[in-house]
């Protein structure tokens, strides 16, 4: 006899009941004895509620009533004796042993690391192909206007020099394929931004006067242009957008149940991830620059030299896990290493 509680489904009254399993397999029947009444129901007609941990199992009877099993060990044994398996049995086995729990910790850590490191970037690269290039130009469309209004001044370089820089840039852009003709160089006096160059998704590359002055040769600037065109060709802005959205979604979806104040803790991984993705993009742009330079007989050393001077000018080389750019030294080393190995293609 298995102790249970019987609820009739019409009122909240609870009655003591005794259960008895009879027969086997598809012929198994459950006999229910409660306060003088007796019923026998085919087990196949009973909805066996899922049991989690050491909680009571609920059974849904065909007449709308239900049973809450109190002696669950006896009921589970009776199910096994009647050669009946519950759907959750494999899961219960996994949930019952510490060995499996440890394996699960391992699978969670490795699985999410792999997915985040390789899965999301691969998916993003794939997804970006389906987004028309014209959409890219909407990303940060007004950032140059904002910078012009707040920090930037028109370039103070002589007009001939400006024209020459545009010619150099066009040369690099021409190599970038069909879209290259759309790319445009904008020159600005950088103000507090200082020596810098960046690419906007709309196809505009901005170079500040300070960086032009920091460069000792045009080859160095060609390296910079090639790096920025590398960002544009690889559609890094759109890809980062997809990747950061996907990773934020993943963190919310998987760890989202951590409610309330604790969800603060879930934002940290997202920040680290986005920085890592951004560093990947920089490395990819460096690699593009390297290939371009090797094809055009420009030594990658030139870009490395400029980066070195940039690092000295900024007075920091702080890299690490929070930085949006890889450590400058690391990038220089990578560029020099590639030069020693020689162009691969």
């Amino acid at each position, binding site marked *: 006899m298995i102790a249970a*509680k019987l*609820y*009739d*489904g*019409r*009122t*909240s*009254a*609870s009655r003591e009941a005794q259960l008895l399993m009879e027969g086997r397999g598809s012929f198994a029947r459950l006999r229910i004895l409660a306060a003088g009444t007796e019923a026998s129901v085919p087990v196949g007609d009973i909805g066996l*509620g*899922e049991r*989690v*941990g*050491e*909680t*009571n199992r*609920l059974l849904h009877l065909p007449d709308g*009533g*239900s049973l*809450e099993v109190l002696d669950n060990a006896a009921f589970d044994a009776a199910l096994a004796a009647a050669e009946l398996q519950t759907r959750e049995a494999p*899961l219960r086995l996994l*949930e019952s*042993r*510490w060995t*499996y*729990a440890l394996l*699960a*910790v391992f*699978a*969670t850590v490795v*699985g*999410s690391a792999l*997915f985040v490191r390789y*899965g999301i970037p691969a998916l993003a690269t794939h997804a970006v192909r389906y987004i028309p290039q014209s959409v890219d130009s909407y*990303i*940060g*469309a*007004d950032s140059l206007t904002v910078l012009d209004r707040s920090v930037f001044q028109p370039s103070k370089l002589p007009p001939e020099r400006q024209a020459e820089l545009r010619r150099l840039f066009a040369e690099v852009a021409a190599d970038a394929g069909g879209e290259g003709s759309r790319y445009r160089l904008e020159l600005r006096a950088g103000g507090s931004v200082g020596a810098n160059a960046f690419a906007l998704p709309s196809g505009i590359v901005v170079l500040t006067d300070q960086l032009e002055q920091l460069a000792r040769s045009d080859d160095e600037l060609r390296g910079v242009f090639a790096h920025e065109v590398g960002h544009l060709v690889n559609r890094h802005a759109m890809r980062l*957008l997809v990747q*950061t*959205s*996907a990773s*934020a*979604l*993943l963190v*919310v*979806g*998987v*760890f*989202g*149940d*951590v*409610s*309330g*104040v*604790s*969800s*603060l*803790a879930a934002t940290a991984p997202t920040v680290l991830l986005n920085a890592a993705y951004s560093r990947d993009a920089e490395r990819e742009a460096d690699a593009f620059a390297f290939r371009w330079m090797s094809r055009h007989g420009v030594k990658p050393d030139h870009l490395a030299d400029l980066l070195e001077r940039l690092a000295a000018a900024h007075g920091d080389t*702080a890299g690490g896990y929070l930085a949006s750019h890889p450590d400058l030294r690391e990038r220089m080393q990578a560029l020099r290493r590639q030069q020693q190995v020689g162009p691969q293609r």
Partner: protein
Amino acid sequence: MGTDGEIDYRRYSRAALEDALQRIDRARYPLNYQRLVAELERRRSEEAAAAASVPAATRYRPEFNARGEEYFRIWIVNLALTIVTLGIYSAWAKVRKLRYFYSSTTLAGSAFGYHGDPVRILRGRIIAAALAAAYFGASRISPIGTLVMLAVIGLAWPWLLVKSRMFTMRVTSWRGLRFDFAPDYAGAYRVILGWGALGIVSLGLLMPRFLCERYRFVITRGRYGSTPFECNPSVGRFYKTMFATIGLGLAMAVVLFMPMSLLLVAVAKAASVSPAVMQVVSTATVGVLYAVMLSTIHGYTQSRNLNEVFGKTELGPHRFVSSLGATDLAGIYLGNLFLIVVTLGLYTPWAQIRLARYRLECIELEVHGSLDAFAAAAAAPVPAAAGEEIGSFFDLDFGF
């Protein structure tokens, strides 16, 4: 004036008897006085007997029998399966988790039941994820896109609230009877958008009223079987809590933030620490202070508001009593956060259980009569899970 001993006090009301006792001239009407006292005595003993025969209310406290080590294994196995299946299993994981929490909760010897269908939850999650992706995309592309998405979500909020409550209540059972939520979309828009907008327009002055109305709406539309919940929290309490919270926030700013920032500046000057180290130290300090402040304020407002709401909630003849403590709750929030960070997330299952246990065991049901007498209602169909899932993806606050 009549003769002494003429008055028949048996026809007097109780209040009239008391009144007469105050006014009577004992010396002049000794007989009347004697009868009056005798009648009052008789009435008093009658009342005492009546009070004794009314059965005293029984209090039931929910019991939460979940155990951390057990839930850890359930949690981690389901998390691993979620990741291995690229998130698809998350719907089944959610059901398994909620089943564990519901069936670990017993009231008067009977456990609660959770009957959510994972396939429908998965469908809801896919819709929610698509919406969230659109939102993230829009927010990265332009401020106008963000505003448009926020407006859409804001307009949908009351609808989502109703759908989410319908789903959650209708998949919950106790003693074989389902809970229910009677949809009232117009009411939801009036409460959430109406009072919410007034709360913002009045610069927060009407916010307590909004909170009060929202709790009242969410609870009074709820039913167990065919018995509706009643809830009449007092707005005054919410105002008191808001002003006390503002005071608490200011006090903490003065006591915690100002000395800490002064200390940081002093240390930086004295020890000539490198700016990089200084930045890390100050970020960490601000983070810790922020967590302390948020936990305290959240613990205080939650405990006060929920005590008021549950304390004024009735189900048929029975009523609820809530005794959440602000310090206890803040301590749990802060302790949980700290341990989750220190253990890199592995403490999460214990943290969830600790919070759930405290919140559940602080509520009591004062039963007048019998808990067996609730009647079932006609079965209400469980709606799509999209509302519930969108709500949890966007962290829309539905009040609990």
